[in-house]
């Protein structure tokens, strides 16, 4: 019995190690897709969002002659005043300029009369890349406005604090690590993805592929017990899934060093220990997904058909994960009953540096393994039917 199981498992592993596409998926594409995509994306986002305050603001201004004081103030506050383009609106619309400040004669008149003086800030809100410059320009103008207001109040003998009844002080209670969780929120998704992709081709090859090659009937004609055949196949699939996952966790740990986390003032999310724990809580999911993909692929008649179905099925475990992205909730015990969701929540907790609840981990591990066992039982039943030969 055990020998049959080991024989089948080893055969499937050796057989599929010789398949270049499977190897590429398990060793390269599955594990590296997440980290590479993630690193590239994070670098882009961070560089866009975090204003580099050392760099002077490049601000095209039209009508500098109407507001010499303002221009002086801007220059004194790390701004390089550029000549405005002839058509500011067009320049901003086409993206040649991020923002243009337009000062008209009305401004000079209003300042002289002591009335609110209008300046025009030409911007395009739909352009994320311009947001940084727009915000800086607006902040500078408001600071200037406040400074002038304070001077006017003082000139009239009024304490400027009178007009500042409320002061908002930001008290951010997020720790650097919990801020990291926000950034690293996609990581559990990538772990799940790597585990699924690692299982993908093997699940097809050992089931639908076996049938399509015509090797299934001879195989079922051997004295090997069906349960051992099925268990051996699913285990081989799970092994590939675990390998893909392990590489993904390693790659992710390494890649987080490439993200300029310091710019966001966050500490990195993964310690070596939390990486290992994440890997361990994911292992039951590898067994579960191996059984799920094998069962589904067993229903199909050909490699092609199996690919179509599995491409659809591989999205299913990601649905609860996406649900938490759009609707973040506190983990509850019942959520640990849901494979993929439970792993997602546990890894998220690990990234935040929170201690894992023993009850949560046990329920997650046991329920996921139980799900896998039920699916394996289903597969054994399936291979006991005559119809399996198609």
């Amino acid at each position, binding site marked *: 019995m055990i020998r049959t199981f080991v024989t089948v498992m080893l055969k499937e592993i050796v057989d599929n190690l010789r398949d270049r596409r499977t190897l590429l998926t398990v060793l390269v594409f599955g594990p590296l897709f997440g980290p590479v995509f993630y690193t590239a994306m994070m670098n882009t986002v961070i560089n866009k969002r975090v204003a580099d305050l050392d760099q002077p603001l490049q601000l095209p201004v039209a009508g500098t002659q109407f507001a010499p004081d303002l221009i002086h103030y801007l220059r004194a506050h790390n701004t390089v005043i550029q000549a405005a383009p002839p058509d500011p609106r067009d320049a901003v619309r086409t993206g040649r300029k991020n923002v243009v400040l337009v000062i008209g004669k009305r401004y000079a008149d209003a300042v002289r009369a002591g009335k609110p003086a209008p300046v025009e800030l030409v911007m395009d809100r739909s352009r994320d890349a311009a947001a940084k410059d727009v915000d800086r320009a607006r902040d500078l103008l408001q600071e200037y406005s406040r400074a002038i207001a304070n001077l006017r109040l003082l000139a009239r003998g009024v304490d400027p604090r009178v007009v500042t009844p409320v002061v908002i002080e930001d008290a951010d209670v997020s720790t650097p690590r919990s801020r990291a969780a926000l950034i690293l929120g996609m990581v559990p998704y990538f772990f799940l993805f790597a585990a699924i992709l690692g299982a993908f081709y093997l699940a097809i090859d050992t089931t639908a592929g076996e049938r399509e090659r015509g090797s299934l009937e*001879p195989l079922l004609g051997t004295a*090997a017990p069906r349960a051992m055949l099925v268990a051996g196949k699913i285990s081989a699939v799970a092994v590939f899934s675990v390998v893909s996952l392990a590489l993904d966790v390693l790659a992710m740990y390494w890649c987080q060093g490439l993200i300029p986390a310091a710019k966001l003032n966050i500490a990195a999310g993964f310690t070596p220990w939390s990486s290992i724990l994440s890997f361990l809580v994911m292992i039951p999911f590898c067994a579960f997904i191996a059984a799920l993909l094998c069962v589904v692929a067993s229903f199909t008649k050909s490699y092609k058909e199996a690919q179509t179905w599995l491409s659809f099925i591989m999205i299913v475990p990601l649905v609860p994960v996406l649900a938490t992205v759009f609707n973040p909730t506190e983990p509850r015990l019942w959520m640990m009953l849901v494979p993929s969701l439970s792993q997602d929540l546990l890894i998220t907790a690990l990234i935040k540096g929170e201690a894992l609840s023993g009850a949560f981990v046990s329920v997650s591990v046991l329920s996921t393994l139980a799900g896998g066992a039920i699916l394996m039982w289903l597969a054994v039943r399936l291979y006991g039917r005559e119809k399996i030969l198609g």
Partner: protein
Amino acid sequence: MIEIRDISKHFGSVRAVQHVSFTAPNGKITGLLGPNGAGKSTTLRIISTVLRADAGTVMVDGTDVASAADAVRLKLGVLPHASGLYPRLTARENIRYFGALNGLPRAQLERRIDDLIGMLQMQEFADRPAKGFSQGQRIKVALARALVHEPNNIVLDEPTNGLDVMATRALRDIIRKLRDQGRCVLFSSHVMQEVAALCDDIIIIAHGRIVARGSPDALRAQTGEQDLEEAFVKAVGESPEVVS
């Protein structure tokens, strides 16, 4: 010895096999002859335990196929109609896998594989991946795979399909060799000449029923035709009347 008693099998409304009975004795080659779709493969699949008969019994060396399928599988060497190999494994690895699944101890298995490679003249391609094999090479590997556990009963479903003349002759020699070792060989074909050249007993099957049986000579006498092919056509064409 394979004994079939009154088996029937239907798929939905299609009655694939109806009341088929025959015995394939040891030391003889029994040919199951019939046109495509006659029920040959279904009959052989019931014997090889991958299908279950709706009615009737099949005994292999006295063991019931339905109640002791695992024991029967060890007594049977089967070359099914669809007999694919694992393309990324070598011929030797393909055979070894099946030997291990049938529970052969390692040392004995390796000896047995070497014997089979010699007997089937596979030395040249034994350690190449099966991917680029010719149909003849593929059949040899599939046959070796079926014989690796030294079964007394050998079931071959249209083994010569797609083989060239030389490969067919080689396969016939192997089948005779197995017969001369005292084994029971049961094989199916839709080619008259094939069966005539090889078989000691012929069973002609059409529309799921046996329509004629006997040695090649007896069949000629039974149908009153000198040419075996004519005898076959007559037997198949007149199936409703010639139920034996």
